[in-house]
């Protein structure tokens, strides 16, 4: 069997980056949540805020470590797997990633050290400040990496000479057309993802009749946030979609499985896009729904897939279905948030067991939405790696297919073990709950503080 190096390189990168994005999606939101709790504790002096903050900080430490190690891999894979990409776009993309390291990575890493181990060595205000700096660091990291990704989607501020991109206007490069939308969409997605995790843990405690004070606070904060951010995400997503229609119309055509641009588009709730026949089978659709959403007119027209030759089209199937999964989860999130607030208003939020049960099982839906969203935007950019500048097939390294296949197998194996263990240990910490050594300050004069999760872990087991 002939191995295709491009396909293998894509598979490997898709695997490592999908694995990685899970952790930032969680830690961006979680760091903001911890900072909020630390500030609330400082302002009100109520100790349960501190207990909750310390509890989530342990979980943050484990998740952050997995995010860091899987992220380092990516910064090298641009070269190992995509060396042509590095050469063609390096002048433009390189500095954006450089700025991420300089403004975010060191900040997060160093102040996380103080947050975790500095409890008895720094004054309270500095501890709170460290939490805020970690949260700022994670968001700053998102800023730069989304700027880089957005430039790959909607390049601007550059010129091409001899096939190589050169910077012309840095402001236009950083704030390229799709960046503000993508950044808002992803940041909000990270906060939503975390809110569902916090909600799930709070619900689990209430259902088990333990840690009830902390559980109620977690649920209230999560539901309140969801009720605001989930509807907001619908609005941001809609704006992002309109922006994509303007700059990457074929991606939109694939998202809607819209083939013929000379007719208004239906919204296909479900369909079987047939790429050979260039039409949809078994479509259940809302007539002209897509036109209404995208052009705000019933007879509005937007480009179809057939407006470009087949070799310039993205894969329709994955883009179409990933988009539906993302939107479906988004709508579910809005329902969960609004219904939760309604229950809260009726005074039944902590007693409606079926709601708590559903919430305790739903911790993962944010992650699936994030992965689906990235699948839509990255697959939808194909066959380009940098839209209109470099095709994915021309971006690879001079590395043998067999070597890529071997390392891919290693990645799957290693990440499988590490990820499995990580989930298992985080679950242990959650099971143990916000009590005991997990959340207490070391006694004054007890010497240097102990390892972050170790005492908690010792008690948990």
């Amino acid at each position, binding site marked *: 069997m002939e191995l295709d190096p491009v396909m293998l390189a894509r598979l490997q990168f898709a695997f490592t980056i999908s694995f990685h994005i899970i952790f930032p999606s969680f830690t961006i939101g979680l760091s903001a949540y911890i900072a909020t709790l630390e500030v609330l504790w400082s302002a009100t002096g109520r100790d349960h805020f501190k207990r909750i903050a310390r509890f989530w900080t342990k979980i943050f430490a*484990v998740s952050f*470590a*997995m995010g860091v*190690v899987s*992220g*380092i*891999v990516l*910064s*090298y894979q*641009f*070269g*190992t797997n995509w*060396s042509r990409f*590095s050469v063609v776009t*390096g*002048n433009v993309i*390189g*500095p954006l990633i*450089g700025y991420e*390291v*300089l*403004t975010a990575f*060191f*900040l997060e*890493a*160093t102040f*996380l*050290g*103080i947050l*975790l*181990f*500095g409890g008895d060595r*720094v004054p309270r205000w500095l501890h709170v400040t460290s939490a805020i700096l970690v949260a700022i660091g994670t968001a700053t990291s998102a800023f730069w990496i989304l700027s880089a990704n957005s430039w790959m989607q909607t390049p601007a501020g550059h010129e091409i000479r001899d096939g190589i991109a*050169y910077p*012309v206007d*840095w402001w236009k490069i950083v704030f390229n057309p799709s960046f503000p939308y993508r950044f808002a969409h992803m940041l909000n997605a990270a906060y939503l993802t975390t809110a569902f995790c916090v909600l799930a843990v709070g619900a689990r405690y209430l259902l088990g009749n333990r840690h009830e004070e902390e559980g109620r606070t977690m649920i209230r904060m999560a539901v309140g946030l969801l009720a605001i951010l989930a509807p907001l995400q619908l609005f941001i997503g809609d704006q992002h979609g309109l922006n994509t229609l303007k700059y990457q119309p074929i991606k939109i055509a694939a998202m809607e499985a819209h083939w013929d641009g000379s007719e208004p588009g239906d919204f296909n709730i479900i369909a079987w896009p047939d790429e050979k026949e260039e039409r949809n089978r078994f479509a259940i659709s809302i007539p002209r729904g897509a036109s209404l959403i995208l052009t705000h007119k019933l007879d509005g027209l937007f480009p179809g897939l057939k407006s470009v030759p087949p070799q310039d089209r993205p894969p329709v199937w994955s883009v179409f279905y990933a988009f539906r999964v993302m939107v479906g989860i988004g709508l579910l999130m809005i329902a969960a948030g609004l219904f939760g607030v309604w229950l809260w208003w009726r005074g039944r939020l902590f007693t409606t067991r079926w709601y708590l049960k559903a919430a305790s099982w739903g911790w993962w839906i944010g992650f699936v939405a994030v992965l689906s969203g990235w699948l839509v935007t990255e697959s939808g950019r194909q066959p380009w790696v940098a839209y209109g500048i470099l095709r994915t097939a021309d971006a690879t*390294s*001079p*590395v*043998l297919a067999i*070597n890529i296949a071997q*390392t891919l197998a*290693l*990645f799957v194996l*290693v*990440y499988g073990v*590490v990820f499995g*263990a*990580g989930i298992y240990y985080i679950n242990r*910490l959650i099971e143990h709950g916000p009590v005991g050594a997990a959340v207490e300050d070391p006694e004054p004069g*007890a*010497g*240097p503080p*102990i*390892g*972050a*999760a*170790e005492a908690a*872990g*010792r008690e948990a087991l």
Partner: protein
Amino acid sequence: MEWYLPLIWAGVIGTAVALYVILDGFDLGLGLLFPFTRSESERDQIVRTIAPFWDGNETWLVLGGGGLFVAFPWAYAVIMPAFYIPVITMLLALVFRGVAFEFRHIAKSSKKYWNFAFWAGSLVATLSQGFVLGGLIQGVKVENRAFAGGAFDWATPFALVCALGLTAGYGLLGATWLMMKAEGPVAERARGQAKVMLAAVMILMGIVSLWTPLAFERIAERWFSTPNIFLLWPVPVAAVLLAWATWHWLDAGRDVLPFFASVGLFFLGYFGLVISSFPYLVPPSLTVWDTAAHPSSQIFMLVGTLIMLPIILTYTAYSYWLFRGKVPEGQGYH
């Protein structure tokens, strides 16, 4: 500008790599020494000495790799495919080592596996870095500014000696770090380990220093032509003197000086390699000027670096100052 910008950037990346080698060097060195501990509480004590720092230390690796991508995309695009196998092996090893920090705190029955992962991850990452180093010194086959060699070009006896030398060097940094930052039997044992490692470093460094001019004409030319030889002779002499002083301080029971002397040895070794290879970023064909990014990219990034690097160094130093002092015996749990 097109002449001196790449030189400035070579300096910045050289500094980042040097800081990485020193800072993650003692982290990895601790991992290498893990099998020689006697109890779980000793291992906890060892990890405690670096727990607040390891994450920041490893970030210098991202700055080194990322910086190469930013400032010298052509070099990045040659080096990464050329060292595909050792680079990916190193990354996977660092994954294991990194998560082992957090997991071994939480695990109980499976703690021994994460101890193993911590040791093996450190060892494999160190050896991989040594092979990349050796492979770079011996040179990379390049055609049309792209890598044109085979997947195992780096796997030579010379690179193996470099890998062993780096392993001994990290072991030395780790052992002297423990003498400085730990109390009790761990620190006492580290003193003996430091001597073994120091001897190994000097032997292996000596072999590399003789091997390179004999095997590579450009390196012999660099060191032994006049007037270079008159300017450069202090470098190896300083290394020998510093090694002798380190041994003396180890004998004399000093706790802090051996660590900084080991750092000094690393700098001298590093400096020697820079002398051998400069101005080539990818010996023997691509110089810093051949591989540089567009000046506009280098300037845009340099502005940020000049502002951010002092800030980063300040809060990093603050963190080391905050967690100053020795970690007492049995201070794993409380």
